[in-house]
């Protein structure tokens, strides 16, 4: 960690500032606006998600074809490709129910704190509790699986 490039953290900060500024600008920090989308009264959210995805899509495509490595880490540029299994459907469904109930997701929740929306701290606390519950459950499951292998 100490051998990180001195510009590593400043770049993370700059990226985070832009990310948060954009979530504020697009009103995604307001759960009401997200709920308006999910209830079909304002479809603007599509422009936020796909507008952002077009930017990342172009940048990812150019960078992965460039044969260059990231200047601050020396890492190769890759795309975000996760393996598919039923967890994507199960987790995605649970996430969707939560998102539809509250109108808030993790990035927008952080941005919401920035616009002064202190009640959102209740949602963030909920997210940590939820992440903790699945962490305990999956850690236990992983340990049981490891024990079962050892027992064989």
């Amino acid at each position: 960690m100490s051998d990180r490039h001195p510009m590593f953290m400043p770049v993370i900060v700059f990226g985070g500032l832009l990310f948060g500024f954009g979530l504020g600008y697009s009103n995604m920090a307001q759960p009401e606006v997200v709920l308006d989308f999910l209830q079909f009264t304002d479809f603007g959210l599509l422009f936020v998600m796909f507008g952002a995805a077009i930017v990342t899509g172009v940048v990812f495509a150019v960078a992965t074809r460039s044969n260059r490595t990231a200047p601050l880490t020396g890492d190769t540029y890759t795309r975000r490709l996760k393996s598919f299994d039923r967890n994507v459907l199960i987790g995605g469904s649970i996430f969707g129910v939560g998102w539809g109930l509250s109108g808030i997701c993790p990035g927008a929740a952080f941005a919401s704190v920035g616009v002064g929306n202190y009640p959102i701290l209740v949602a963030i606390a909920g997210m940590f509790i939820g992440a903790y519950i699945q962490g305990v459950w999956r850690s236990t499951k992983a340990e049981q699986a490891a024990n079962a292998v050892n027992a064989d």
Partner: protein
Amino acid sequence: MLSTTAAIGLLQTGVIETLFPNGIGQYAIGGLFVGLGVAVIYLGTGIIAGASTTLESTLSYVSGQSRFQKYRLSRDWRIVFALSTVVGAAFWALLFQDGIWTTDVQLWRLFLGGVLVGIGTRIGKGCTSGHGVCGVGSVSRTSLVGVVTFLITAIATAQIVMAFGVVP
């Protein structure tokens, strides 16, 4: 036939106003900034930053559960990223918002929704930024399926909640 073009024109004006009563400018421009934030970090470091991993990586500071330990190496910059998101939105609020803004969505919805978001995003391998922005930008089939899945259940949930007269 003769008025097809005119009809389409009329329809479009009405449709656009109905679908986007607040216009599309702030959404598209905000989305570009969100994408640029991800792009800056990616071009500098090769890291594809999603927001929801921060939940687990931060829990590794206070919990010894094995599930969280794989995030130990990234947990410091992930907190920095989350805090910068807060500050970035605060910059926006200082420039464009009159004072602080608070939601009217009921606290039980925020809390229960938050718990489900926390569970679901980690099991489902991503959230609206991880799957929605970074995964779709990667043309990842897994993420496209993830996005469609959470859009369907989110729309269904929000519609049911509205049908029960819970506002907001």
